[in-house]
């Protein structure tokens, strides 16, 4: 049974993505229309339940960050549908209890104006680089309070209280000693805590975290991962965790989706997917991860060639050129549909 782009929003899902596609023109000049396109995200479909977590894993250039940006409306899709069931989105009043999910589904493409402001309150993003995502001239208080004032939430004193409270929650204590400092006075780990505070201060139901620990040192990394997990659980926030690191995705997420060249090739429960990887790309990716165990030996990943950018790719399976299992059928057929091979475990491959 293949996922089509027209199924209704899955009952109880917080967000439902169907047939999501984003193409970027290449070689566009002033007097020339683009004739080629990078198929950065191509027909991506998945659901995320309230409070759930999905790890979007793949190599650089696979389209994982583009998916994240599409979800929070930092980019608009070329085609496809993103349906949200976020509190306060269908009508303009924002209820204070984000756990109410008897909301009608709202199409992301239709969200604009006042509704966009309500959307920004419920869907936030945490960026990779804590050194570039903050204005160096603004204090920590200014940085975190900004979304509150944009949303018109509370009086000045309320906002100071709220910012202090969230600083405490992200472990920057005592809050009073951090409120009026500047980003350059903080370590990378502390800055990323500020970024998390800024994303969570407005009470979102959904957060996209784009490699939030990849620029950090080992010791701050663990702290940030544990913090995010704990807060998401306590506050009931669902998140999409974009990462190149399967081990991090395993640690952080209930489910994992593996992306290759703009396509989700496999998606399933974390432990099931790692124990029984089915797609040849997932298997290659998994077997390339070095193991922190000097006695162990790994077979080299079974994969050919190198990653190429998906510029006007042929209709066949995107993994065809590198696949150890490719057949004549794979050459002549379109990209395989995503099929449920075991309960909750979906794979896009003709040969498994």
């Amino acid at each position, binding site marked *: 049974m293949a996922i089509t782009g027209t199924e209704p929003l899955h009952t109880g899902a917080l967000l439902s993505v169907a047939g999501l596609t984003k193409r970027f023109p290449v070689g566009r000049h002033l007097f020339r229309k683009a004739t080629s396109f990078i198929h950065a995200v191509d027909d991506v479909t998945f659901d995320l339940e309230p409070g759930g977590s999905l790890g979007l894993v793949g190599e650089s250039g696979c389209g994982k960050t583009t998916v994240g940006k599409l979800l929070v409306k930092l980019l608009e899709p070329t085609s496809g549908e993103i349906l949200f069931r976020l509190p306060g989105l269908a009508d303009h009043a924002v209820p204070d209890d984000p756990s109410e999910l008897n909301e009608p589904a709202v199409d992301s493409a239709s969200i604009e104006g006042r509704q966009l402001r309500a959307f920004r309150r419920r869907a936030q993003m945490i960026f990779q680089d804590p050194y570039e995502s903050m204005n160096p001239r603004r204090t920590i208080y200014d940085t975190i309070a900004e979304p509150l004032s944009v949303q018109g939430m509370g009086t000045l004193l309320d906002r100071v209280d709220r910012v202090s409270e969230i600083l405490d929650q992200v472990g920057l204590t005592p809050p009073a000693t951090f409120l009026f400092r500047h980003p350059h006075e903080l370590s990378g780990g502390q800055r990323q805590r500020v970024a998390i505070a800024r994303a969570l201060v407005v009470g979102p139901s959904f957060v996209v975290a784009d490699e939030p620990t990849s620029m950090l040192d080992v010791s701050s990394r663990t*702290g940030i991962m*544990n913090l995010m997990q704990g807060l998401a659980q306590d506050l009931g926030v669902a998140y999409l965790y974009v990462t190149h690191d399967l081990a991090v995705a395993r640690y952080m997420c209930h489910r994992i989706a593996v992306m290759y060249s703009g396509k989700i090739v496999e998606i399933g429960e974390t432990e099931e997917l790692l124990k029984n990887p089915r797609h040849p790309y997932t298997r290659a990716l998994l077997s390339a991860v070095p193991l922190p165990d000097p006695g162990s030996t790994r077979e080299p990943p079974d994969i050919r060639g190198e990653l190429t950018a998906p510029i006007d790719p042929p209709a066949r399976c995107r993994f065809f050129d590198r696949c150890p299992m490719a057949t004549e059928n794979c050459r002549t057929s379109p990209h395989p549909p995503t099929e449920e091979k075991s309960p909750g475990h979906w794979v896009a491959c003709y040969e498994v």
Partner: protein
Amino acid sequence: MAAKINGPLLKVEDLTLRYLTRGGEVRAVEGVSFELEQGQALGLVGESGCGKTSVANSLMRLLPDNARLAGGQVWLRGEDIFALEEDEVREYRWRRVAMVFQAAMNSLDPVYKVGQQIVEAIEAHEIEGTISAARERVARLFRLVGLDPALMDRYPHEFSGGMRQRAVIAMALSCDPAVIIADEPTTALDVIVQDRILRELKAIQQQLNMAIIYISHDIAVVAEVTDRIGVMYAGHLVEYGNTADVFRAPLHPYTDALLGSFPSVTGERRPLAGLSGEPPNLIDPPAGCPFHPRCPRATQICQEEFPPQAWEGTQWAKCWHPMNAGAEAPSDVELEAASDVGIVEQSAHGEGG
């Protein structure tokens, strides 16, 4: 290459390095000692700022202007490298010790053909007599690192990240060095390319019986490619031993915390404890053991005196309270008789920690 080896290939003794900055003197490297034999692979691990890259740069004699060698010596094949004159350093660098840098993108000149850059390195060091011999040598190096020699006349931008890293490895190998230092050689690469490069590097190292020092923050990479490991913290080498021993039973609480900070794709999924706090400011490091403010095992003495080496076989850690119960730990009672139980007193290298 003449082999007049008495003792180890590379011997680093009590290496101590300072950087003069506006904020004060940074104690970047504090009394680091280790040895490396031909054919061995050593991994130096630790967080940013722990001094691992400073050690590597010292071995290359590639130190910035504000660096000051405050003590210690480095011998390569019995020769004191800090005694070399400037013209001898040029000869020493690349021919004796070569480096594979972190960002392969930046170590290739974008306006020259990749092969030509390596040919020039070979000519500058007078390894081959003629240009055609140098080109033939580059072709062989390309084949060795898994690049098609036809790519010699391409420019760096025509190479993928993995191909560039291979070219940089070929360049490092071009002058037959005795020691290769690989500073985060695969950090910028995707995991499948990383796997290929590491396998390649390991095979070449074994084939040529070369000594190699991997500098990395990624303990899983180090676990796979090295047979010795040194763990650095706040400029000190705090633990050293066979890679397998250190991973199986770390002695230093910092090593233990570091190993417990990485999630894994295999085994039980367990919560990571990690480390609390931040590494110390090296302009004004804490007294005693530099790790004591973050250490779960710290006691009074850790705040006062720099710890001696505690041994377990060939593995050691500078710690008053090592993890492994079998280790010959310096207890307070034993302190006076320390030398009798095989403990080498380091006395904080005369720096007061």
